[in-house]
């Protein structure tokens, strides 16, 4: 059996479940309370759980993310909502220099059981300070786990294991997915370790995550109409990468293309490509390709924004070039 819900409802349910299940869990961030959440993820929580556990913060990203780290060290299980990945840069010091490093520099004495959720990605004409995809930066940092739920199931299921993780977890929620609907099986299970095949194919492995996943799926459908069977790998966990699942898919298809909304230079896509080269170079029938964002701050005008981002057509074209 299954039921239908959207991404936002799935994440809201996950937070609700966590708040009910564990008195140590609380949500903090800008406008998570009275306002109901910038994207309404916490609508109704303020009335249900009260201002202590649904804690509105001032516009102090560095301060409240750091405070969440301290609260985690003090025995709580905070969920911090950061409005966008761009704003998270104001808190980057606390995430990288404190949360990620704390266990190591204390010689293993202190773990930081913290979950940070943030919106990422473009596609809503929000221009260059609300639209970037910086999850690849976070995936660079030892000491944190980085998740990118791109399905209803993952939006519903990734939070609980993230909260159970004794170390910091950063969850990237692509704004383009919030209204996406899907069926959630009653017997769903979700881990925060593995990449998953979202489509089985034989001719080319399309490796993607987050907001690019539906685009990869659309591209795969278009390719199927032309007789090309693409396999689609959803990375899901951006750090640590599930290298095994990636390699199994590429070894089967002998061709791979990485789709990543981050900018090309120094991207997560580059890391995935490097791993393919390191591990299964001789399985490849063609150079690995990638479709990334163009190297420009995200523009406002719709046609320019669309031209900046990976699109199904670009993916299809890249696959066709690869197949010759």
């Amino acid at each position, binding site marked *: 059996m299954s039921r239908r819900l959207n991404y936002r409802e799935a994440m809201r349910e996950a937070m609700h479940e966590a708040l009910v299940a564990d008195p140590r869990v*609380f949500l903090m961030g800008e406008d998570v309370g009275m306002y109901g959440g910038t994207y309404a993820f916490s609508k109704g929580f303020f009335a249900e759980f009260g201002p*202590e556990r649904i804690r509105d*913060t*001032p516009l*102090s990203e*560095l*301060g*409240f*993310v*750091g*405070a*969440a*780290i*301290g*609260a*985690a*060290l*003090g*025995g*709580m299980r*905070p969920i911090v909502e950061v409005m966008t990945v761009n704003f998270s840069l104001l808190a980057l*010091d*606390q995430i990288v*220099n*404190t949360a990620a490093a*704390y*266990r*190591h*520099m*204390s*010689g*293993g*004495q*202190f*773990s930081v059981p913290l979950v940070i959720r943030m919106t990422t990605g473009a596609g809503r004409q929000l221009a260059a300070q609300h639209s970037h995809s910086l999850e690849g930066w976070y995936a660079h940092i*030892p*000491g944190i*786990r980085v998740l990118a739920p791109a399905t209803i199931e993952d939006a519903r299921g990734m939070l609980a294991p993230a909260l159970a993780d*004794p*170390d910091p977890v950063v969850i990237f929620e692509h704004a383009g997915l919030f209204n996406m609907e899907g069926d959630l099986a009653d017997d769903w299970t979700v881990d925060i370790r593995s990449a998953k095949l979202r489509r089985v194919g034989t001719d080319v492995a399309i490796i993607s995550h987050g907001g690019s996943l539906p685009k990869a799926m659309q591209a795969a459908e278009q390719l199927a109409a032309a007789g090309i069977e693409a396999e689609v790998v959803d990375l899901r966990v951006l750090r640590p990468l599930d290298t095994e699942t990636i390699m199994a898919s590429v070894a089967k298809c002998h061709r791979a293309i990485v789709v990543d909304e981050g900018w090309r230079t120094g991207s997560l896509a580059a890391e995935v490509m490097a791993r393919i080269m390191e591990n299964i170079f001789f399985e490849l029938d063609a150079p690995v390709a990638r479709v990334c964002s163009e190297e420009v701050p995200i523009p406002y005008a719709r046609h320019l924004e669309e031209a900046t981002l990976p699109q199904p057509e670009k993916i299809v074209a890249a696959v066709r070039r690869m197949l010759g």
Partner: protein
Amino acid sequence: MTDHHAAAPPAGPVPWEKDFALRLLGDMVRIRRMEEKSAEMYGAGKIRGFLHLYIGEEATAVGALHALSPEDNIVATYREHGHALVRGLDMGTIMAEMYGKREGCAHGRGGSMHLFDKATRLFGGNAIVGGGLPLAVGLGLAAKMQNENRITACFFGDGAVAEGAFHESLNLAALWKLPVLFCCENNLYGMGTALERSESQTDLCVKAASYNMPALRADGMDIVSVHETTQEAVARVRAGQGPVFVEYQTYRFRAHSMFDAELYRQKAEVEEWKTRGPIHTFSARLKAEGKLTEAEFLALDARANAEVDAAVAFAEAGTWEPIEDLLSDVHTPENAP
């Protein structure tokens, strides 16, 4: 360059029983001897990286920490050897940490700037200036949400006052009425930049009070002033009225770190401040009151030196963590308690 003239040396009666006074004096001497030895071991190449000595500022950590309870949380800076020692860390594990040995309090992963100890609730050793303040706010929040009767004392320097983290943290702590004691060790220089070259408002209590919290000032060279002021501040924080800010006006006798040629201050200024040295002025007051004899001072100094010798021996005998373990403690192991 501006002269920062020292006030008259601390004087006046010591309102404490002899035992307590000697315990605090002893702790100041222990820090002094440990720091002198650390500098020596740095010169010998045994300690590397950055080494920030607390010499001259001992009264602040000793006087303040003796006003706190073992259940309280301590957040400190990279100039934290003294805080760690007074908090109860074994001097050997501190020295071993500075040596980079596995027996160090952070297994050699942190070094001089990152002394941590879960048992005594010492939450670092934070070497991003201002980085410890949001952490202290969160520890205070956790205590409040769990109805724990513990306060969090957060030490930081005058340099941190210029950071955005200072503004955000004091605002949050006051807004949420959290049990946090902000302990500002104002030694007049953020590394080599004098306070008046970095702050438009050099009266740090005025600045802190603007966040709607009490702001107290102590003479950081006078352990009596430090301890009494901190006690008053602790009582207010523990009463649940929210955070309190204390400024300790102190002075660093040594360079900022071992790489500092001290071009930014006059030698005469340092010498003038040394006349206010917290150890000799406190000793003189105790002697004048008949609470300390020269023999007693020599005895506690000898004990401190013996402790230092034992700490060095412990560090020397320590072992190097095997390189095979390099990646441990990046993440918590599975099934860890």
